[in-house]
């Protein structure tokens, strides 16, 4: 039962964060939220008896992906900066 509640909470958080990720005006917040969704998903994976997946999701899904996002965002902002 406890796991059900935990997973439900995780699910709600993920859904909320994903809505934030999509609807928040600031792109940085959006990217971070998406990374957060990934991170929580990896916890969910642990609950689902998938440690391998959890590890991968954490390292790749939330880690590297978010990082590349920021890299690109940074780059784009610099473009803008140069423009102005």
């Amino acid at each position: 039962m406890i796991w059900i509640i935990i997973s439900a909470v995780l699910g709600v958080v993920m859904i909320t964060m994903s809505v934030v990720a999509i609807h928040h005006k600031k792109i940085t917040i959006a990217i971070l939220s998406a990374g957060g969704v990934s991170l929580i998903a990896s916890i969910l994976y642990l609950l689902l008896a998938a440690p391998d997946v959890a590890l991968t999701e954490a390292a790749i899904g939330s880690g590297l992906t978010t990082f590349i996002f920021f890299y690109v965002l940074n780059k784009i902002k610099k473009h803008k900066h140069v423009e102005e």
Partner: protein
Amino acid sequence: MQNIGIEQISLAVGFILLLIGIWGMLSQKNILKIIVSFTIFETGLNVILVVIGYIRNKTAPILDTTELQTNTAEKIVDPIPQALVLTSIVIGLGVTALLLVYALKMHKEKKSLLINDYKDTKW
């Protein structure tokens, strides 16, 4: 309520994430946001995949104890979907990275991140 378990909840979450991702891809104008939506879509998919392999009250398919090594089939969850998710995550990374580079290049071309500005080829 008897039947409701972590797998149904996770499955529902997976579907909802999937739908939110598609919603974002269809409605957001900012290219980066579209890509963000895409990653959420992928995450939803991955959750669904993992759920498909899940069997209640069974352990991860890692036979690190001798107890697990006998009658294994009754004790572990399905390893195959997990293997698939692994692949799917990596593919997702490759696609996302490429999409981001596309976004970068598009921005370089028109100094805009609005998807509506990229309608040069049509009809």
